[in-house]
């Protein structure tokens, strides 16, 4: 039942990057054995601190990156091994909204030319129809007055308008699935809200599925149907949004919650190490171990498996029972 309606299915996704080491070539693994699925019309929010591999997963899903291992299936297509023409076909299905509204638009091109190419190439619009479609699209994302804005250049738009254009560009190919990579992190609170609302509207009206990447739990909860928590390239916890916020089981999730402004945290973080997790490809154990107050020998040795704790609530931790210790 679940399987059938899943639009995106990811199994055992591993991504490695070469890094310049002192002597021999080394790798880091910012994404390690990640499984996820996204249903049609569903929003999966992906949270986790900086460098935990969120963007990397997103880029792999739209195939800007080739996975090192694992499979990505979208509508039954083996996305992980697509090439050439097939890959171009896949661009119609999945699109991405990039993190940085300042960097993701080409400063020397007009607003309309950003959406013109994909409309022509993927939807085959031409001439007058193309012209009308552009207006429709810009209107759809609220870039009004359309006629005036079309001929402008990105620098003449505000941050919120730019982010809207980025969304319009993604929509221009009429995709079914959008990876939204921290689409609001660079924007002000007030503009942020507008963008989230817009994406929400599009989901409702067009039935789009999203992978919503963020490190802000509050917005993940607002926009996401489910939330997946990532740490050091591993999935720590995944659950319905409300459930996860109410009942965080993994120590990292709890830490994240505590750190989010607006929560009444009592965890003292002043002396906490801020070292990033070890991403080297020969690491062992739970990536959170060096910051986790519950860490024991077993944590250092083996990565806990993702287990279902409550209905629909999966968590990876060796010490679920010791939940209370932090608060």
């Amino acid at each position, binding site marked *: 039942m679940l399987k059938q309606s899943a639009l995106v299915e990811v199994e055992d996704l591993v991504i490695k990057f070469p890094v310049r080491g002192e002597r021999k070539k080394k790798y880091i693994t910012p994404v390690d054995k990640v499984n996820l699925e996204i249903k049609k019309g569903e929003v999966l929010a992906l949270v986790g601190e900086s460098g935990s591999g969120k963007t990397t997963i997103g880029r792999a899903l739209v195939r*800007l990156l080739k996975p090192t291992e694992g499979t990505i299936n979208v509508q039954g297509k083996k996305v992980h091994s697509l090439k050439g023409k097939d890959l171009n076909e896949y661009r119609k299905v999945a699109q*991405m909204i990039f993190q940085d509204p300042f960097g993701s638009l080409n400063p020397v*091109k007009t607003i309309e030319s950003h959406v013109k*190419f*994909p409309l022509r190439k993927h939807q085959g619009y031409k001439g007058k129809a193309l012209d009308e479609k552009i207006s429709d699209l810009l209107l759809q994302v609220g870039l009004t007055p359309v006629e005036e804005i079309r001929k402008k250049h990105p620098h*003449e738009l*505000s941050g919120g308008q730019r982010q809207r254009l980025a969304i319009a*560009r993604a929509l221009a190919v009429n995709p079914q699935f959008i990876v939204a990579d921290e689409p609001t992190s660079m924007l002000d609170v007030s503009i942020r809200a507008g963008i989230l609302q817009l994406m929400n509207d599009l989901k409702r009206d067009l039935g789009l599925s999203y992978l919503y990447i963020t490190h802000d739990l509050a917005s993940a909860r607002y926009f996401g149907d489910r939330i997946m928590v990532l740490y050091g390239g591993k999935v720590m916890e995944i659950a319905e949004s409300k459930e996860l916020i109410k009942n965080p089981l993994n120590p990292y999730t709890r830490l994240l919650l505590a750190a989010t402004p607006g929560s009444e945290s009592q965890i003292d973080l002043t002396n906490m190490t801020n070292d990033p997790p070890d991403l080297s490809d020969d690491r062992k154990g739970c990536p959170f171990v060096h910051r986790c107050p519950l860490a024991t020998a077993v944590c250092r040795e083996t990565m806990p498996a993702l287990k279902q704790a409550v209905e629909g609530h999966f968590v990876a931790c060796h010490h679920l029972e010791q939940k209370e210790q932090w608060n």
Partner: protein
Amino acid sequence: MKAEITTSSQIKVKQTNNILRAFKPLKLFFSNGKSAAGFIIFSIFLFIAVFAPWIAPYSPSAAVFDPNLSPTADHWFGTTNTGQDLYSQFIYSARNTMVVGFGAGILSTIIGLIFGVVAGYRGGLTDAILSFITNLFLVLPGLALLIVIGAYLKASTPFVNGLIIALTGWAWGARVFRSQTMTLAGRDFISAAKMSGKSSLGIMITEICPNMMSIIAGNIMFATLGAILAESGLAFLGFEDINSTSWGTMLYWASSNAALLRGAWWWFVPPGIGIALVGLSLVLMNFAIDQITNPRLKSPRRRKNHGNKRART
């Protein structure tokens, strides 16, 4: 509810439209006194070059006048020892020198673009190989290489020399283009273009190059200046067809006929001034381009937001 959006804020415009301004060269050049002066000087010489046959009173090579005349009403710059009209030579030389200079400037920029953009965009092994070649050319001593190749090639008309100059002088540009391409290639709009299904070539041509227009223009200016100076140096040393018409060749003849010693400064000085003025106009125009596009020259202003990578040069 959709938020209503009114017209954009002027302040934002101010911050980022610099790149765009490079596309309005005229306005750009008149934006400050230096570049306006440069542009005017340049236009005058361009005019001279284009309309040389109408401006020059005589053929530059016709040895039909009294030799060794000092300036007169008929011969503004006097005549050579073979009775050629120096003023006409000066005019026609402007044409050749500018054609060769710009030809070489543009050609070397194109070669530099190919090497730089492909290397910067492709990365990996392609980059390693292209960068190696680039660095090699950067490191090989320009003038010496020019002279040696020129001496080996023989048929050194100004055009051949221009070609050699371009073929040996593109490396600096390639390096600049490469690093610029690398910063651009890391920007999300390139990924976005990829997502929209553009080919690599398409991305390089329609996304990356337009973003480097001002650097490209600057490079053309710079390379042109270099080519004009190199060409005149070669001609002066006698590594150019001495029957060609260029300022360098004029200087060669002037010096081999001891123009200064015999007091014929009107033979020796104008070609040098010509080169210097064209050179200066290029430098001044480049100054303007530089000032607008080089973030280093803008009045220091704190960057908006975080994590913007800066290009290391």
